[in-house]
């Protein structure tokens, strides 16, 4: 996994971890192990741990301490209702981001095309007008 992939993943790691916990409760190292199985090999266990400390501080997960044979008691993390609401919000934002970035990626897409796609999803008529102006300006640039 390259540097770029790692940087990209950082921004969405919290959502990914909440999504994993939404399926079932897990220990910290189980989450790291799952991520590694999925090919996110550069993710440090410490990074996941720091993230779990954060979501716990923010009250998005419930934590149960389970005694372990060796080492300190293990923390089992479970997504709570506040975490679930946060995860729903994450999926909403994720969907918007994917739509917008993909619209730039489409073959033959111009910046004007991307703007009008964004305006359509936002459903704002004034933004639509701006998009038309952008298209006109784009035409001028190409003409030069």
């Amino acid at each position, binding site marked *: 996994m390259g540097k770029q992939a790692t940087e990209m993943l950082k921004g969405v790691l919290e959502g990914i971890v909440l999504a994993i916990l939404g399926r079932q409760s897990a220990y910290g190292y189980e989450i790291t192990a799952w991520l590694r199985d999925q090919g996110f090999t*550069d993710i440090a*266990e*410490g*990074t996941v*741990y*720091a*993230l779990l400390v954060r979501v716990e501080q923010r009250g998005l997960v419930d934590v149960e301490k389970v005694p372990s044979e060796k*080492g300190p008691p*293990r923390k089992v993390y479970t997504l709570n209702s506040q975490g679930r609401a946060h995860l729903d919000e994450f999926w909403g934002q994720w969907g918007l981001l994917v739509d917008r970035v993909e619209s730039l990626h489409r073959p033959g897409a111009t910046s004007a095309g991307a703007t009008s796609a964004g305006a359509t999803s936002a459903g704002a008529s004034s933004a639509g007008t701006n998009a038309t102006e952008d298209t006109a300006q784009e035409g001028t640039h190409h003409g030069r």
Partner: protein
Amino acid sequence: MAAEWIEKLTGSFEDKKRYRNYRARVEALPTAYGDSVKALERYLTYAGAISAGDTLVQMLDDLAVLFEEAAANSTPLRDVTGENPAEFAEDFLANYSDGQWINKERMRLNSAIAKAAGEAGSS
């Protein structure tokens, strides 16, 4: 009663007890893990400049738990810290920014700009 004003002079007894406990746990770790915790503590203390004693002790406690778990599971050191331990340290430190000395200045800056922008509730 007496403990209250003494603690004002010496800092919290409870924090000191937790700190001593933390030191003992670090000493009990296998050398490689213990050395890593000490190196991280040094960095976190310098870079963090955490002035709140309870936040500092909580941070070190959380740090020790991570390495105790790693030692118990025989997780290789590099799997814990990643290729760039300083980056991990920054990620980790971000959780305790409320206790940082600089946090007062962050809030002062934000409220000064809010006041300059004429926003409500910024008097």
